[in-house]
């Protein structure tokens, strides 16, 4: 139940995030000055917070989507399996988010 709502909330967050992706790409397409401004904004604490939130929403929605694929295959409907899948979702998404950010900082 909670994970079903979370799947919608993270989906809606990514919907809003698509606007930020478009804005960054357009800023880069406009040239060096607007690219530098976009990079400054993305690197600010507010930008990093938004990017971290986007990363988590992306992984949470991805893991939730995989859960739906498991159900589409006709598996994971038993009460215990269903609850385990739901409980695992935020932990797997959190672990993938932290891993992505470790790789991101290591690659700088």
């Amino acid at each position: 139940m909670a994970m079903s709502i979370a799947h919608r909330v993270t989906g809606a967050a990514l919907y809003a995030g698509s606007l930020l992706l478009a804005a960054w790409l357009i800023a880069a397409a406009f040239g060096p000055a607007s690219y530098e401004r976009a990079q400054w904004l993305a690197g600010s604490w507010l930008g990093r917070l938004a990017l971290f939130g986007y990363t988590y929403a992306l992984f949470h929605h991805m893991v939730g989507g995989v859960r739906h694929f498991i159900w589409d295959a006709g598996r994971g409907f038993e009460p215990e399996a269903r609850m385990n899948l739901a409980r695992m979702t935020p932990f797997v998404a959190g672990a993938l988010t932290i891993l992505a950010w470790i790789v991101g900082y290591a690659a700088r």
Partner: protein
Amino acid sequence: MAHGSSLRTPLGKVRGLGPARSGTEHFWVQRLTGVANLFLAFAFLAIVIALTGRDYASARALLANPVVALLLTLFVVSGAIHMRIGMQVIIEDYVHGEGVKVLVTMANTFFAIAVGAASLIAILKLAFGN
């Protein structure tokens, strides 16, 4: 239901579209783009990580790489289709006024196309422009 007592025409059964004329297409396309996004999202994150801390010239060099431009294009197109259907499901569940529902559904489609097209034009400019 006994044979011969159905109100549906044989042609209607074959088409399988039902009264809304849309059938299971949205369900299927959402799975299709979902599978695509599962892989494309990892490619997208790898590109974002590779872009961090780059100056303009080296960022342009990366975005001009054909494989990078292709992966970004696929992610934007598949993502825009996926998010349009996903938001429409949310609208259908929570917006009940018939007039408002039509307007919000339309706005959702406009948003997905506008964001997708704007991203695509920027990707093409970065890949081919100077």
